């Protein structure tokens, strides 16, 4: 079991006050706070090691390369990926753009279906839409049910055409928290079309659930560093090496080349082919430290802690008059991003009043407008929990909701 009071001591930011009150940080689905060990690892890297990687023969360059490649191995192990298939990107969004440009644009054409869902973050919608006009594939979406689940009848109907060549889906909704049964869906897609490729958005799931790419049956997995205790500026595309090898590069420049003449260029081997320019080295070091921190606690313990929070949070929110909780209510079926509505109040007003109570929540469309629209509004208020949150903070959330209702007299 996770000792949350001990965990909290590792996160210096959680000590601070906001508007004269103790901070209650409930916005980890947007970005997580960082443990001291991540901050230290990055500082130490800059103080002792800093050099560019993969070139230069001096000691620092070798140490920096070693640190960067070791980070790649650490991240690969964390999601059970082949390190050769682990590409460091700027963020999860860039990982999706890489796939859209290098895979979808070159592999899909008229008659092919790219199947996505209504529950996706814009990062898993817009990149595909960008390349759709020039390739002419059919872009289809699985709708979301009123209960915040995927409409499996609709999914089955599209898959039955046998034309789904790429299926891309989030493993956990960033708005309503739903855990998607990726493995079952992937199996159906592959049964209908053996050539189909499965892309998984792990931006919300990798920080919160133990993740095994093989177990998920994913060909590609995209996630970001900053939502899993790591720094901003680094994301991960983990993919099958054979697929990556066959794909053209995404960004061009240094590092990704094998030889360059003025007439043309041959490309480096994977994963370097997809890492143009100086990569986020210190960020990779920080991300590896974050993975070490999570692994040290154990992802099962992290998940168990969040399930415990949800067991308190969901009933507590539902008990407040006028509050509606979106998405699944069974903690076993959802992650710790909890969107809710308060009757008669707009999320921006709720967010502003809560902020004054020291409670940081997110108000808005959460970069998932198609999903939020199906909830019948333009915005929701979202409280999202992580390993450092406590049941006391759930009470603070409920108190802040009451304070908001009192303020507006609804």
């Amino acid at each position, binding site marked *: 079991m996770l000792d949350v009071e001990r965990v909290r001591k590792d996160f210096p930011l959680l000590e601070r006050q906001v508007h004269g009150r103790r901070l209650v940080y409930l916005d980890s689905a947007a970005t997580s706070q960082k443990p001291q060990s991540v901050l230290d690892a990055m500082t130490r890297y800059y103080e002792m090691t800093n050099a560019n990687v993969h070139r230069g023969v001096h000691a620092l360059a070798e140490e920096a390369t070693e640190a960067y490649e070791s980070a790649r191995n650490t991240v690969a192990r964390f999601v059970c990926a082949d390190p050769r298939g682990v590409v460091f990107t700027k963020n999860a969004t860039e990982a999706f753009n890489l796939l859209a440009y290098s895979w979808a644009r070159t592999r899909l054409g008229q008659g092919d279906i790219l199947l996505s869902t209504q529950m996706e973050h814009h990062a898993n919608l817009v990149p595909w839409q960008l390349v759709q006009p020039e390739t002419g594939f059919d872009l289809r979406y699985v709708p979301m049910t009123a209960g915040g689940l995927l409409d499996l009848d609709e999914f089955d109907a599209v898959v039955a055409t046998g034309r789904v060549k790429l299926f891309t889906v989030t493993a956990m909704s960033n708005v309503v928290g739903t855990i998607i049964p990726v493995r079952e869906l992937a199996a159906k897609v592959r049964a209908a079309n053996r050539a189909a490729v499965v892309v998984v958005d792990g931006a919300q799931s990798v920080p919160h659930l133990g993740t095994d790419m093989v177990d998920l049956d994913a060909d590609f997995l995209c996630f970001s560093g900053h939502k899993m205790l790591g720094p901003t500026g680094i994301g991960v595309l983990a993919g099958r090496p054979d697929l990556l090898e066959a794909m053209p590069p995404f960004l061009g420049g240094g590092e990704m080349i094998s030889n360059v003449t003025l007439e043309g260029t041959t490309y480096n081997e994977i994963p370097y082919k997809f890492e143009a320019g100086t990569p986020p080295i210190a960020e990779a070091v920080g991300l590896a430290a974050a993975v070490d921190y999570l692994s040290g606690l154990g992802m099962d313990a992290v998940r168990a802690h969040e399930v415990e929070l949800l067991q308190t949070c969901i009933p507590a929110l539902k008990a407040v008059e006028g509050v509606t909780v979106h998405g699944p209510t069974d903690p076993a079926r959802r992650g710790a991003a909890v969107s809710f509505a308060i009757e008669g*109040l*707009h*999320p*921006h*007003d709720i967010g*502003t*009043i809560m902020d*004054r109570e020291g409670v940081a929540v997110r*108000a*808005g*469309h959460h970069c998932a*407008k198609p999903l*939020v629209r199906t909830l019948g*509004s*333009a*915005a929701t208020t979202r409280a999202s929990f992580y390993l450092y949150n406590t049941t006391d903070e759930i009470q603070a959330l409920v108190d802040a909701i009451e304070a908001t209702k009192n*303020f*507006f*007299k609804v």
Partner: protein
Amino acid sequence: MSLDDLYQEIILDHYRSPRNRSGDLDPHDVHVHHSNPLCGDELDLRLRVQDGTVGAVAYDGDGCSISMASASAMTEAVAGRKLSDADDLAEAFRLMMHGEGVKREDDLLDGVAFQGVAKFPVRVKCALLGWMALKDALQTYSEGEAEHRVTYD
């Protein structure tokens, strides 16, 4: 900077008891729709022109208390004014929200209560939504058009 600066009693009153809030205005000469995708605010504004003045104005929408209350206060402040005067008043409100002094304080009526919102930069656009829709409606009308849609980035 306190919450009372942001949510004055006058503002809450307009939120709870909106003035001139209606999904239609029959007849009307111009209709504009303004939306702010960032926060999801949507606003419809309909204007009837009578002898070169604001004969009637109605708004409807979906948004936070600041945006809806501000639109409500705006409709009272501009009713009966010459079109050019209403436009000038909207400009005075815009400058006030950007912290550039309060002009035409008496003419803004309850609009003055939104001064405090200027201290909350992320909410300024909320207070401006209705007034910017009004400016757009006047502009659209002056160009001989009857419909206009604006999406803020």
